């Protein structure tokens, strides 16, 4: 039996011997060369920092995520403590990070710093996961977490509540800019997982009615410093 890889690639090359016409568009601005720069046509991400922050907060609100703006790290710690009290958290998981650790360690409940390896059963029993992030995208209200910036893959998805602590200089305008930054930052090796989180987990599978908290966090908090 011929090697499947070679056979499939052979079929593809054979099929592509006949060329398909390039799509014709009514808009004339592109078509001749391969330029997909769609940025000017996608939703706006904001030109200035204040415009970006305003868009981000608007989009997060529409997504039913909770944004808490605070002036400094000390206020962020207080904000986290307040959520913890209101929600009556018993057990909180977090990862080691200059913004996250001090806030989580000060909480008046059981705390667990996920270490080199993660006990998934233990994490399942936690009320909340507190993480940092790679970036926030004002255009869409998305938060980019990664296995590197956010304590692995499970911490931001398994606990019932996810709290992100971030700073305003992490806000970028759009997806394209965000990808550019990520590629630059992780030039040598990408984190094995990069995930754009856009609001708390949701489903519309039952009669297309929106329900929050299908499998991932039911609630998403963003504590934004600056």
């Amino acid at each position, binding site marked *: 039996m011929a090697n*499947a*890889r070679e056979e*499939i690639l052979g*079929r*593809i090359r054979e*099929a592509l011997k*006949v060329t*398909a016409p390039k*799509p014709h*568009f009514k*808009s004339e601005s*592109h078509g001749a060369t*391969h330029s*997909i720069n*769609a940025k*000017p*046509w*996608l*939703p*706006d991400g904001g030109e200035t920092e204040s415009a970006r922050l305003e868009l981000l907060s608007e989009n997060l609100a*529409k*997504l039913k995520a909770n944004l808490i703006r605070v002036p400094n790290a000390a206020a962020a710690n207080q904000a986290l403590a307040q959520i913890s009290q209101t929600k009556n958290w018993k057990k909180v998981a977090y990862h080691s990070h200059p913004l996250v650790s001090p806030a989580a360690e000060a909480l008046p409940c059981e705390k667990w710093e*996920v*270490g080199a*390896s993660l006990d998934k*059963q233990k994490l*399942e029993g936690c009320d909340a996961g507190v993480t940092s992030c790679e970036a926030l995208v004002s255009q*869409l209200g*998305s938060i980019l977490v990664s*296995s*590197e910036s956010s*304590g692995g*893959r*499970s911490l931001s*998805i*398994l606990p019932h509540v996810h709290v992100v602590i971030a700073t305003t200089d992490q806000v970028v305008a*759009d*997806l394209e800019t965000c*990808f550019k930054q990520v*590629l630059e930052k992780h030039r040598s090796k*990408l*984190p*094995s*997982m*990069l*995930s*754009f*989180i*856009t609001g708390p*987990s949701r*489903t*519309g*599978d*039952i009669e*297309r009615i929106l*329900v929050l*908290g*299908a*499998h*991932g966090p039911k609630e998403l908090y963003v504590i934004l410093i600056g």
Partner: protein
Amino acid sequence: MSNAKDIFLKEATTASADGPQRIFINKALGGYYANRDIQKARYRDWEKARDAASLAKWTAVNDLANTLETFVKKFEGNGGKVHWARDAAEARNIILKLIADAKAKAVVKSKCMTTEEIHLNDALEKAGYSVVESDLGEFIQQLRGEAPYHFVFPCMHVKREEISALFTKHLGTAPTNSPEELTMIARRHLRQLYVDADVGITGANFLIAETGQISITENEGNARLTAALPRVHIALSGIEKVVKNLDDLSVLLPMLATAGAGQPMTCYNTLYSGPQQPGECDGPKEFHLVLLDNARTQLLADPEQRDALHCIRCGACLNVCPIFKNIGGLAYGTTYQGPIGSVITPHLRGLEQWNHLSGASSLCGACTDACPVRIDLHHHLLHNRRNANQASPNLFDRLFHRGFNFVISRPRLFAFGGRVFRFTLPVLKKIPLPYLSAWLKTRDLPPAPAQSFREQWKESNHG
């Protein structure tokens, strides 16, 4: 013996006669239309964004061999393993072997239409593994023992009362009519299964050649959990899912969400580039990707319909299709329903058996207008009709058209024929003639006028 066409005609007739169900489906889609329009309005130019999305897919598909090779090299460089499958059986065998090698007992799956296409669940269950669909809609359909109704909204046809009864029967939970409570029942039930599963199976929405990542789009978080907790992650993807780079993805991700579900962005869009890396605290130890052909290269070989491989499976064409809305998703009998399913199924499963789907269209073009990557869907339905007719010409059609052509090019004969037809119509209505009797089954034919149009015209102008 019934073939696909007979089953389709029977199912479609039953479904389209079910008025309350049609109202239910239209109501369920109402919210989608409203949200989609709100989100589309946020684009500075939706039409030009569609051009860009279309061009991104065109570029990758028309350079598929190179794009795939670049992707595979990067993917394997990141520590993943690629497996190539020529057809469904080969893909099933690869996945079964991977699961056996992992000495797995329990398998958890996130939503993936490609696994439906290769009938993976049947194969896994026959081999003795317990498989759980974790997407809420797929989970409900799995309990119902029914195929997905819509490839994005799998159980949109099921009422909450039915779901409540289903959960009571299978999970022993108390009846409830609240979608929220029903969702929480599934959440509680599935949670431990993620933790216990040895293997997680997902699909992939995009493969990115530039970085060797696979991109998975979902709302519930079940794919995130499936790719985080089990020790082996197996992803299955069609070869056509590859795109050149992350720039292309920055267009396709928001458009997929807006066109597919009326969202600015789907809740979780996740890029995976490998198994757990040194310094990372969790993630699978092994990461496998099965790349599936399964007749996609046949569609690729047809330059006229090659753009059907641009499909990003958003489901927008289903949501606007008058046929889908009236006959529902199950009648199609295909993995992919609606206009895109009617276009590609004849290529994937054989034109002769599945050409009837090309007739299940009003050719209104709503699908083509809705498609975010500008697939020329309704013309492809015509192309399939033409191809089928060329492959096995229908004798009746040929004779009919030849006769019609003969008559209409002779004005006197046409006038005479018209007169005969007008007088014999009351009788013709009662004779079971091909096509006419099927047409008249659900329609009334008005009585024929005494004069033909040409006679009336003459009188009104010269009388």
